[in-house]
């Protein structure tokens, strides 16, 4: 994949982050091209969530630079709102708003952030809900849906903002096994649409199917970054091998 700066969706240079005395990101350098799909994996506590949460400034970094579509994120996050317009996020716990219907969940930010008219916001919400095959549940409340359905709504909600980049933080980890597939299928079709995507997941089938690169993190560092084939068949680092044997035998 040839990369010049105008094609970069995300650029992280020398990113360091601490929680108190604990350094959780250590010298992270990462370029993500437009349309690239990255799967991020690594042991618990290695800093995967922290890394992707820095991209839309849910977390502050202490050192380094992060640019999104050519706009550098200022240290204090003064332009975070600007960057968040281009970046959608899906969480492990769905985080749907319980007091709003599925449709209202998908309309709120369109109305308040994009100032879209109610009719237009509803139109777009319904289009994306259809895309994730859940339009018939539009009038229900989150608590009335299964976990897999809720996560698909969360994806639709993010898509309603026309993000150029989607961040997923273990989107299937809180799901019962029988619901994992419906969410992964949704994500695969999204990837086919050409959106830029960073996905924290241990679903290695998904990684093989859509990832251009798989990145392995351990203790706050990027240890290995490779195409899925090479990553799975021939990892170059001992820690990656140990990690893979753990999750693949699991």
């Amino acid at each position, binding site marked *: 994949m040839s990369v010049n700066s105008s094609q970069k969706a995300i650029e992280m240079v020398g990113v360091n982050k601490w929680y108190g005395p604990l350094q959780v990101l250590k010298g992270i350098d990462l370029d993500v091209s437009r349309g690239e799909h990255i799967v991020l994996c690594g042991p618990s506590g290695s800093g995967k969530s922290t890394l992707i949460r820095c991209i*839309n400034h*849910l977390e502050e970094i202490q050192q380094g630079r992060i640019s999104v579509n050519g706009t550098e994120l200022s240290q204090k996050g003064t332009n*975070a*709102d600007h960057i*968040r*317009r281009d*970046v*959608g*996020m899906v*969480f492990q*716990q769905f*985080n*749907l*708003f*319980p*007091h*709003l219907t599925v449709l209202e969940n998908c309309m*709120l*930010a369109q109305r*308040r*952030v994009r100032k879209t008219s109610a009719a237009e916001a509803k139109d777009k919400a319904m289009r994306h809900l259809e895309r994730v095959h859940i339009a018939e549940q539009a009038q229900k*409340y989150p*608590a*009335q849906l299964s976990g897999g359905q809720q996560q698909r709504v969360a994806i639709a*909600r*993010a898509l309603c*903002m026309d993000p150029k980049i989607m961040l997923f933080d273990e989107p299937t980890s809180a799901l019962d096994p029988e619901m994992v597939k419906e969410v992964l299928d949704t994500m695969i079709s999204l990837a086919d649409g050409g959106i830029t995507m960073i996905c924290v997941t241990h679903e290695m089938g998904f990684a093989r199917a859509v990832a251009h690169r798989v990145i392995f993190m351990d203790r706050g560092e990027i240890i290995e970054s490779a195409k899925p084939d090479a990553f799975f068949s021939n990892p170059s680092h001992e820690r990656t091998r140990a990690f893979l044997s753990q999750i693949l035998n699991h």
Partner: protein
Amino acid sequence: MNYSFDFTPVLAAWPMLLEGILGTLRMSSLSMVFGLTLGIVFMMMRMSRQPVLRTIAIGYIELIRNTPILVQVFFVFFGMPAIGLRLSGEQAAILAMTLNCGAYAAEIVRGGVQSIRPGQIEAGRALGLHTADIYRFIVFRPAIRAVYPALCSQFILMMLNSSLVSSVSAEELTYFAQTLDSQTFRSFEIYLTLGVIYLVLSQFFSAALSMIGRVYFSYPTK
């Protein structure tokens, strides 16, 4: 004991009692609405990152919650004219009860806001919503729902406490009962009736508030 009970003078004074009931309803309802609004403002100050705002809010909340409500009522009615604020009995009553209710509501609502999972706020931020919108559209309703029973008890307590404002001639139920007592000397009958009316009023408030709650918070949860 040769006191002969006679409720007829009490019952005959029903227009006066009705006016008292309306006065109590009016003052309590207004103080609830204003008090909740004020409480939300002070809750936000209390949770703000600005030390000055936080200190003001804490000072106010502690002051109100650690002084008798009667003293607060007296201060507003008798004390404020010294700084140029001369209020009628009813205005002073509403102001004092609003201030009182605001402090308690602030603490109750704060508990509700703290019960909201951080993921809710993060989801709002990730969608690009501003802090004010996050509070208004995402946090507020589930937060109030979480503490609604506590808020309702506080409101009912305030309605009952409103009997104290008779002492600054605010024309509510207890004020009229006292007037009637001084005219008829039927203290036993009057205050027994008064107690029953307050009992009915709190039942009424309780039912009305829980109906509002059912309408406003009707969304299902797991």
